[in-house]
């Protein structure tokens, strides 16, 4: 099974070419493509002026017509034994090959004080770093499904957890490590660890948790669009290069052809 994460232009194009070569392929999406937010697309071949969301939906429809499953879920971790296990909010999925087509890496707007304490109390990965906060005071920032999932995990590590939102926080304060959070209502909450979970998992965080190498331009790939992990590929806005639909469609097609020729 080949799993494509993301149903934007790169993911759809990749799925289409794989399926036409008789490959077993599925697409998982959280339906939060940047394309859905584009008011109009006016620079893509053959469509004329089209609403972003409409083009996105057309893409999904085109692969569903080829009987490619399009699953609505958000992948929050990739683990592997012999094959990959994609851990979603709703389900887990097994896959032999993974294509990351998650769209552009967002350079997050840090909470005041956040950047200074990364790795010194601030964490973006409960499974990686929860260990260091056993029975300590933990704050989970965020209220989306992803934050709920991280909270559930951390409950096994400490019984002393508070939940906060970005909007509640004025500043994260500490010395050589985090000591407390100053809230907007001007009270302080003492904490040892802060787990930051935005509403949806950012591509950057998924890569960090899964051990996929990134830099400021996106996911690092080799000449065959493969990441630092064998059998995990990437394409579209997630990799360095121009952020355009036509380029993403081309990337997706190229990745499909690389996978087809390798198998």
């Amino acid at each position, binding site marked *: 099974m080949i799993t494509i994460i993301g149903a934007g232009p790169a993911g759809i194009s990749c799925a289409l070419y794989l399926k036409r070569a008789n490959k077993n392929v599925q697409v998982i999406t959280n339906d939060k493509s940047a394309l859905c937010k584009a008011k109009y697309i006016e620079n893509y071949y053959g469509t004329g002026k089209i609403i972003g969301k409409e083009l996105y939906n057309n893409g999904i429809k085109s692969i569903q017509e080829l009987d490619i499953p399009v699953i609505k879920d958000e992948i929050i*971790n*990739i*683990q592997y034994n012999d094959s990959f296990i994609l851990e979603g909010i709703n389900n887990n999925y097994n896959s032999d090959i993974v294509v990351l087509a998650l769209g552009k890496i967002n350079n997050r707007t840090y909470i005041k004080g956040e950047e200074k304490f*990364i*790795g*010194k*109390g601030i*964490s973006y*990965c409960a*499974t*990686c*770093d929860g*260990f*260091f*906060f056993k029975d300590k005071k933990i704050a989970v920032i965020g209220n989306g499904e992803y934050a709920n999932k991280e909270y559930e995990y951390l409950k096994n590590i400490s019984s002393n957890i508070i939940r906060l939102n970005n909007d509640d926080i004025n500043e994260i304060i500490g010395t*050589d*490590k985090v000591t407390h959070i100053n809230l907007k209502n001007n009270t302080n909450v003492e904490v040892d*660890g802060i787990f930051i979970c935005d509403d949806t998992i950012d591509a950057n965080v998924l890569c*960090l*948790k*899964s*051990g*996929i*190498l990134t*830099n400021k331009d996106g996911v*690092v790939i080799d000449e065959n669009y493969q990441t*630092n*992990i064998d059998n995990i590929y990437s394409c579209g806005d997630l990799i360095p290069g121009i952020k355009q639909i036509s380029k993403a469609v081309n990337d997706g097609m190229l990745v499909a052809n690389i996978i087809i020729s390798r198998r």
Partner: protein
Amino acid sequence: MAIINGNKNNFKELINNKVIVDFYADWCGPCKMLSPVLDKISEEENIDIVKINVDNDPELAKEYGIMSIPTIIVFENGEEKNKNIGLCSKQDIKDMIK
């Protein structure tokens, strides 16, 4: 050079040489990805890699302020020279030991 399994008993002695210390755990996905990169470094560069499993040596992790793994620290003469938190490339590590 070599990959050495470090622990709290031999650690102080090991970091008297120039070494890269890898704080890791078996359950940590990114650590698994960093491990082969460090293996390559040990083959290509004139430096030992000291592996510290934080499950076995939580005191050492605490002493060096490790709160996120993988973390690698370059030591020389017992002193911390450079530190990187999280996965990084082979070139990043080579730059750290220059």
